[in-house]
């Protein structure tokens, strides 16, 4: 997987408020901007900025419902992140297997 596809996602998520927004959206499914401002105790302009960073990076998507803006997490973004971790977990698992085999062979030769 190309590194450039996940870097913007990690970059957007690397902020406590934005990470909390995404966690809340994952839990609730879909939230209006006004509903998001309350639990985080932040002003609407600040919230709008965070939502824009997350939207621009492709972490979340927006839809209009009768003059209200509703936000949700883009499943593609979550899949991409999950793929990145899965790839690296495989790397470590294989590395640990090799380490295990190496330690065993060391033991046998000593």
């Amino acid at each position, binding site marked *: 997987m190309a590194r450039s596809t996940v870097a913007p996602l990690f970059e957007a998520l690397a902020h406590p408020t934005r990470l909390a927004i995404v966690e809340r959206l994952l839990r609730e499914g879909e*939230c*209006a901007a006004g509903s998001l401002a309350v639990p985080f105790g932040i002003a609407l302009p600040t919230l709008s900025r965070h939502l824009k960073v997350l939207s621009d990076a492709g972490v979340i998507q927006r839809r209009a*419902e*009768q003059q*209200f803006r509703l936000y949700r997490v883009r499943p593609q973004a979550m899949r991409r992140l999950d793929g990145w971790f899965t790839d690296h977990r495989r790397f470590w698992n294989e590395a640990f297997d090799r380490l295990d085999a190496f330690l065993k062979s060391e033991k046998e030769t000593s």
Partner: protein
Amino acid sequence: MPATLQKIEPLVMTRQFEAKPERLYAAWTTPALFSQWFGPPGGSVTRCEMDAKIGGRWRAEVRTPDGKEYGASGVFKTLEPPKRIVLSWIWDDRPDGAPDMEIAITLAARGEGTEMTFRQTGFRSEEQRGRHTQGWTPAFEKLAALLAA
């Protein structure tokens, strides 16, 4: 109907919102929007369906922050966008034989904002009416937050 039923006053709450009546009307009659503000602080609406036409059914289910679940349903009786909504309100756990509750919402434009008059009837005790006041108060605060953006 026992005589005591008629003695309980309706619950009337009036609130000012910084939004046009159209947005309030939508917040009451659109599942994706009603879900944003109904229920206790920190709670979430787990299911909401509304067939927003006269005689159409609605249903909402809520999970509280401490994991309790409850639901209510009813029928739309009056829909006059963006001025008036009347609906029946039946809690899932209401006792057998208890009458339907009714909610009437009146929306009046006040400058750039809206005055909402909420009127709920069908209470069986003052205590029950008091619990509803405590329930709607934080919900209307969430509604104000939803409308602010």
